[in-house]
């Protein structure tokens, strides 16, 4: 159940982020084209792509967590015996989950506080944009929980993933 949720959340994040990245590329290019060839600047393009980057940071961060691609110093832990390495990983996962829980809760509050405020160029409620943070952190929380459960259920110590 948990692993299936984690799997599907990851699929959703991958598709969303890919769409956002492509849109940003086109929008920023369009911005140059409009300014130079049509002589008119777009007002919304910069804002749209900036907010896209915020979403990629947090949703993409969850993809990276799922793949265990977040950069870490592994040289010290690698020296430990498999058993103690597993203990250390359980401890760090708990710490990360505690942090993510706080970030999610505070992120939800921040989003709600800012629902009535609108972005200057596009007029989108800022709360919608801030919600990238709790959404991404919640996704990460699920992935971390899934890794923790796998670890507790007799699984051997997790191997680090690779960036890219």
């Amino acid at each position, binding site marked *: 159940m948990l692993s299936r949720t984690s799997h599907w959340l990851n699929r959703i994040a*991958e598709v969303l*982020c*890919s769409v956002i*990245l*492509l849109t*940003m*590329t086109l929008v*920023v*290019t369009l*911005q*140059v084209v409009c300014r*130079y060839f049509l002589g008119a600047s777009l007002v919304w393009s*910069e804002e749209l*792509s*900036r*907010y896209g*980057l*915020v979403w*990629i*940071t*947090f*949703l*993409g*961060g969850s*993809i*990276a*967590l799922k*793949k265990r*691609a*977040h*950069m*870490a*110093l*592994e*040289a*010290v*832990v690698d020296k430990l015996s498999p058993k103690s390495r597993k203990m*250390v*990983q359980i*401890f*760090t996962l708990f*710490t*990360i989950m505690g*942090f993510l829980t*706080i*970030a999610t809760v*505070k*992120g939800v*509050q*921040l989003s709600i*506080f800012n629902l009535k405020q609108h972005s200057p160029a596009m007029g989108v409620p800022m709360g919608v*944009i*801030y919600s*990238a*943070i*709790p959404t991404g952190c919640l996704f990460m929380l699920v992935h971390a929980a899934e890794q923790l459960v796998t670890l507790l259920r007799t699984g051997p110590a997790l191997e680090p993933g690779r*960036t*890219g």
Partner: protein
Amino acid sequence: MITIATSFTVLLLLGTPIAFCIGISALAGLLQLGDIPLLLLPHMMFQGTDSFPLLAVPFFVLAGALMNAGGITRRLVDFANLLVGHVRSGLALVNVVASMFFAGVTGAAVADTSAIGSVLIPAMAEEGYELDFSAAITAASSTMGPIIPPSIPMIIYGVSAEQSIGALFLAGIIPGLLIGLALMAVAYFSGDRQTSGFSETRKAVGWRQLLSGGKDALLALFMPAFILGGILAGIFTPTEAAAISVLYAFVVGRFVYGELNLRQLPELIKESLVITAVIMFIIANAAVFGWLVAALQMPQKVITILTATVSSRWLILIMINLFLLLVGTFMETTASLIILTPVLLPLAKQIGLDPIHFGAIMVLNLVIGLTTPPLGVCLFVSSGIAGISLEKISRAMIPFLLAAILVLLLVTYIPMLSMWIPQMYLQR
């Protein structure tokens, strides 16, 4: 302060991802300060990532991935081979020159190591080079990636220090070329012992061949000129240049070289997303950390302590150099830049350094750290490709490392090396 430092160090040593080390220790700091609403945490995370200049990061990463898949890397290596392949210890020089070219299309060191290494380490093995030597020169030459423009670390420094990214790009040109020359000198003299007899059989190619090879690589070589030229002429911002270079890489790879398969695209995008998110998530967390650093008035304290005990400007610079080299070996470059720029830049200004010059020093320093044993990431990647132990590559690395450090000292103490080109441009 002690809480932050302790929790950070412990978490780091336990193998917690660096982004979380930063976030969690910053949160611990916030809790310890007491009366600070925790809403600050998501708020600062947002502030840190909501940035137009930082948008250049995903674009340059994606452009690099597209160029790799579209056959541009191979053509750069081929062209480098035509240029210097026939010289003594030729392939070692090819490795450096190809990295130099590749540095013009990518802004990251690790990308350079894996792209050039996977092509050249096997080729060098075939010609009789020792694996440790080939792996070491691959790792060493990839330091040019983030120094020769475009450069992701320069963008991040520029955002953090509020400096012109265009000027920072320009500041990297001469230091990057110097690193290349220094590495080639080392390779030329030390590679000779390993390949006696091999390079003699190769002949210099004629002009015609060189021209046709150059034509093949021209579209790739044109990239950095296009990016820098466009930024300097004020046609587009670095971020816009990065977005256009994504389209450029796509068009060249797909329609000119015809090697980019549309089916590869989702995988390439996903790969770039992960690399981007890793960098950006560190930045998000480091923004919270940065707020604390400012609230605790750390820069002022560091300046007061240092300037009270050390009077010599040269000594302070040496200390900064050593400190950054140390940090660079075990910390990710982005994290180091975002956390340390606000602390060290005021100090650098205090002793009369230009922020652009200091950017070149900082980036060079941290990037050399990426290839410093025992923890530099590029060493891991390169020794992984070559299939040798970290100990072996570390030993082979020493002469290259010394050469890079020599360049670092030159760049630190001779401001003209980094400032000449930006000043020429700025005076216009």
